[in-house]
């Protein structure tokens, strides 16, 4: 039996699942009124009030997805904000990264401003964006864009500057024009850097969307959490966090898939091919 269950790559998921169940069980035991909480708190409902109860959180999630089925509109809003922020931020970052890396004078002039904008805690822009773009999706997308832009921008900038000079000289000798160099040398080289930052930037786009909703909105998962918090409904807050985490994982997995497909020219660690 132990031989069968021993941790190895095939039973990995089993152990991961066990850990999840164990955590949920620990949570349940520590917050169930009348079990352990009376030993620590004056009021036996206090633990449940502060930390929520896993069973109620689960019931809430099920109600969201199956029972009332009212979370979908919020999820769609949050996810479309994330995707828009990601797409716009990446495109802008790619374009300006390419431009500044290839125009040394412009980059020299703009350098202190870029540094300043990157150093600034950009989450603080959220209230300004709410004023500019209103409480709808626009302000959330804008916040996500500012977060994603700099990640992509710096990676592309770095990527273009680190294009192998030999590969570049070779392409020139093969007769590439300036445009062709951009299309066939700089862009692919920069893309590999964009992809290395993709996991981070998808995550940040998500952060931008949720934080934006949390600071003021009328729909989205962040809004749900804000509402629940207002009425001290900790179980719903927890349920919202769980749902967000699950979708962040799904997005990250999707990015991994796309990366695997587009970056197949890159050597991967441990990849040995027989020839």
């Amino acid at each position: 039996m132990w031989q069968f269950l021993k941790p190895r790559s095939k039973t990995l998921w089993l152990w991961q699942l066990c850990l999840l169940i164990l955590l949920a069980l620990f949570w349940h035991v520590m917050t169930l009124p009348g079990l352990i909480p009376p030993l620590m708190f004056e009021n036996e409902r206090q633990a449940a009030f502060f930390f929520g109860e896993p069973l109620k959180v689960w019931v809430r999630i099920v109600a969201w997805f199956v029972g009332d089925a009212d979370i979908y509109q919020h999820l769609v809003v949050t996810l479309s904000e994330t995707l828009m922020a990601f797409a716009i931020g990446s495109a802008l970052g790619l374009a300006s990264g390419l431009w500044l890396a290839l125009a040394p004078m412009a980059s020299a002039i703009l350098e202190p401003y870029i540094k300043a904008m990157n150093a600034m805690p950009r989450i603080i822009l959220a209230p300004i964006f709410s004023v500019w773009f209103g409480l709808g999706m626009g302000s959330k997308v804008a916040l996500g864009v500012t977060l994603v832009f700099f990640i992509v921008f710096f990676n592309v900038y770095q990527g273009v500057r680190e294009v192998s000079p030999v590969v570049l000289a070779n392409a020139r000798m093969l007769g590439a024009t300036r445009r062709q160099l951009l299309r066939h040398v700089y862009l692919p080289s920069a893309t590999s850097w964009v992809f290395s930052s993709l996991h981070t930037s998808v995550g940040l786009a998500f952060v931008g969307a949720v934080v934006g909703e949390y600071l003021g909105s009328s729909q989205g998962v962040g809004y749900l959490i804000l509402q629940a918090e207002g009425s001290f409904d900790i179980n719903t807050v927890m349920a919202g966090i769980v749902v967000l985490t699950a979708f962040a994982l799904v997005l990250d997995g999707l990015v991994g898939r796309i990366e695997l497909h587009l970056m197949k020219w890159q050597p991967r660690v441990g990849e040995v091919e027989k020839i």
Partner: protein
Amino acid sequence: MTVALELQGVSCTFAARGDPGQRYTAVQDVNLAIGAGEFVSVVGPTGCGKSTLLNVGAGLLAPSTGSVRAFGQALQGINSRAGYMFQAESLMPWRTALGNVMAGLEFRGDPPAQARAQGEEWLQRVGLGGFADRYPHQLSGGMRKRVCLAQTLVLDPDIILMDEPFSALDIQTRQLMENELLALWTAKRKAVLFITHDLDEAIAMSDRVVVMSAGPGSHVIGEFVVDMARPRDVAEIKMTPRFMELHQAIWSVLREEVLKGYRQQLQTA
């Protein structure tokens, strides 16, 4: 014989970045002419500016003084009649072997189908017919060099510049590649400027061997015509008495420079 590539009084001086007062003259007053269809090797101690010379010939580097002519025409920018095989890894890692070979044809604007057919033909010619869809990292060092060779030759350049193309290869693969290159060259008879630090390789392959002095300010100090019959086999030819004679003659000139270059490197180190 028409002159394919001509360097006249070429000097290259580099200023250290951030300190313009510190200058380094890599090559000084170099005169070199390669006839159409001629295979010329340049040998010299390490750091004597051989690669600089090649970059000047390719048009990647403008000389500080002197002029460069390709088939009688003064060079403006990239030398479009030349193909360049680099010493370092120069393949685009995001393109397959076939994609790399096709690159030049694509840049030139050939129709895709035609470019593909030509690319496949050249891959076959360098013995990589079955590796068209491999990425560079999936190929061995020798295979990558073959792809480079096909990539350069598919454009059918009139001048081929080679910068120690086989120096990273093991000795067996190297001899194989040298013979293959000679076979391809014999069929097409293009002008070749071949840079190497390996005197054996230079003599075995060339019509003419040019010896450079140690840097800084290195220049041509000797020229030797290799009057041995073709086709040659690079391994076998090394056993012939004429080869050894030439080797001795060139080495007597080169030796002093190699020692000089070595002493200089020790001093600066």
